[in-house]
């Protein structure tokens, strides 16, 4: 909904007065709905945090206990002792940074090619690209592994950080959709002025697509942060593990200690929450540098 201009009471004619009130009611309604829905969305997360602070005997109770009694902060210390949190954090940040940079750069270019240019074979190739994500991973896992093993990349970060530099079909698809919403006039005008496609891409399309690019960056970041399968498959040295892997093996080692598991899971989730909260304004509301967008 478009933002409305506010006027002071003095300048308002009677019919504008009711408009302010309608807006106030609308806003209140929105808040109420948001709060009501939040309860159901938050419930599992609240359970996670609540369990993370419980002692073992209070985990399974007949009626759900939301407030742990007694509160056992020690769970977090125990969980963090179980795996080298800071080390895994550093590893995870390393992998995430590379994945984000690689994905955004290498997906934006093909997306531009698919969206803003007309060339032979464009639509067929686009369909082929989509087709590559239609095959379930279980059947390609073995050949992929054997392939990486043959070129000697197992045991390193390479299988995790190199492929993102060659585009991600999801990101390309998403960016293509966004790029297609930008009016052709902008590109045409620039072409008439003699701009190369490369310049149009960097100086017109990219600035206009900050929300989309930031969304792709966010998804890439979160995907890399929470991915436990690939690091577990390819990393052999425990000191190179990422947080997601640490959590997964934590489960294998302490399968019955739900409170510790929830503490570990909370610790792994919290940074993502913070990152999302701080950056959501950037990609949702974006920074647009021309006057065409609202």
């Amino acid at each position, binding site marked *: 909904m478009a933002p409305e201009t506010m006027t002071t009471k003095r300048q308002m004619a009677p019919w504008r007065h009711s408009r302010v009130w309608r807006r106030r009611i609308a806003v209140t309604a929105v808040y109420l709905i948001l709060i009501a829905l939040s309860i159901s969305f938050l419930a599992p997360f609240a359970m996670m945090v609540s369990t993370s602070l419980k002692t073992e005997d209070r985990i399974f109770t007949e009626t759900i206990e939301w407030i742990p009694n007694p509160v056992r902060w020690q769970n977090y210390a125990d969980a963090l002792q179980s795996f080298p949190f800071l080390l895994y954090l550093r590893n995870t940040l390393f992998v995430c940074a590379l994945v984000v940079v690689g994905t955004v750069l290498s997906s934006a270019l093909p997306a531009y090619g698919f969206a803003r240019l007309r060339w032979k074979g464009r639509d067929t190739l686009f369909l082929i690209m989509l087709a590559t994500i239609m095959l379930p991973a279980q059947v390609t896992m073995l050949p992929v592994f054997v392939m990486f093993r043959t070129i000697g990349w197992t045991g390193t970060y390479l299988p995790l950080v190199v492929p993102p530099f060659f585009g991600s079909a999801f990101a390309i698809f998403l960016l293509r959709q966004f790029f297609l919403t930008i009016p052709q006039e902008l590109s045409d005008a620039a072409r008439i002025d003699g701009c190369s496609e490369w310049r149009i891409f960097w100086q017109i399309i990219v600035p206009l697509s900050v929300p989309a690019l930031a969304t792709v960056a966010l998804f890439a970041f979160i995907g890399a942060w929470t991915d436990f*399968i690939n690091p577990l*498959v390819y990393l052999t*040295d425990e000191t190179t593990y990422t947080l997601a892997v640490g959590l997964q093996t934590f489960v*294998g080692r302490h*399968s019955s200690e739900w409170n510790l598991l929830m503490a570990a899971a909370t610790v792994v989730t919290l940074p993502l929450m913070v990152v999302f909260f701080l950056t959501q304004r950037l990609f949702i509301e974006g920074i647009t540098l021309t006057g065409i967008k609202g």
Partner: protein
Amino acid sequence: MHLNRFILSIGAGVGIMGATACQRRQPASGVVHLRAWTMWGGDEAEAFQVVVDEFNRTHPHIQVHNLPAVEDTKIIRAIVANDPPEIFTLRDPGYLGSLAGNGALLCLDDLFKQSGLRESDYAPGSLSQCRYNGKLYAMIYLMDCFALLWNKDAFRDVGLDPERPPKTLSELLDYARKLTRRDSNGRIVRIGMMPPDPLIIISAFGGQFIDPKTGMPTADHPRNIEALEWYRRLIEVQGSPEEVNAFQAGFGQEMGINNPFLVGKVAMMINGQWNPYWFQRYGPKVRYGAAPIPYPDHYPEQKIPTWLGGNIFCIPVNCKYPKQAWEFLRWTQTVDAQVLFASTMHGVPNILEARKERSLREGEPWKRAFAVFMDVANSPNARHFPPTPITGLYQYEIYNAADFVRYGTKTPAQALRDVQKRVYREMLFWRRSGHAPKTA
């Protein structure tokens, strides 16, 4: 049941460890480093580490490095990529048939003969879990066996003699009905008998999974059908299948203080020998008894049935240091190594001599119950699932059949006949492709 299976399946579908550990070894110094990938995690991993440390201490020229909490699929991928660990455990002994049948495991017959170990040293059902097509493909290091556990206070509550457990399966049904309790709203608050693993009941009836002469499946053997019929009646005398299922869904983790037996939600159960120790640790006040599983009334030759499991250790066929890996496995068969592991892991030794060890039977109160398990494991009716190349599928089908029977969607005969159709066909397929065994 859900949560236990969930635990077992965490991490599966995961990939494989590569070659880096290989590069860390220094054969030049004369010490051989072996990688052991084992299924245990948490406390159990620590228990195994004690054993590993003892071996490493007494064998300075062979050092074993344990990697805990490893899933079977990870091992399979390592084998496929030609870089497996030197020693590994099979969380699911059912994989033995598939791996051996495909030639992925080192045959240990020669090493066994040369090592001076004798068949007669071994408890019933131990080496047979390691044999496929008559050949030895693994070594067993401690076994699991199952017995009946009952809550004495619950017995007293309903007027049953707490020192007298049910001896026959029909008695068990009777007791189960008496011990089931409901609250004023009619909801179950305690079931008399935890529905047991259908495989155990089939075995208790003297049922048969594989024909020993032909090596082909016999899922719809008449005894199997009888067993599932009894299984259905067990659920029936305690409530409707939905009620019992819903009640079971609310059980806490077995390894912990919310163990359903300890908190009084279940009065009797058939479970493994690790329980007395857990009971001591998580619910020392609970008074319980241990006894052989009841036998079917009209098959008295089935007295003292029990179901066996085991910790199976394998050496891959493309192992780089087979002799050293065998050294470790050979060492695990000494009485000292058996007793050491049994005292921390609470498994049943597979070497008969070790079962007599007093430190395992006396001392803490729970050891008396543990001794019951050890004795039960000597029974001639101690059985296990035969190693086949289709064990994974076969067991899944049986569990599914039990589910259908439980809900009344199929009769036991129907359900098992359907199972037989599919597993027979699957076995034929393996035979034709040259992988299946000629005999059981």
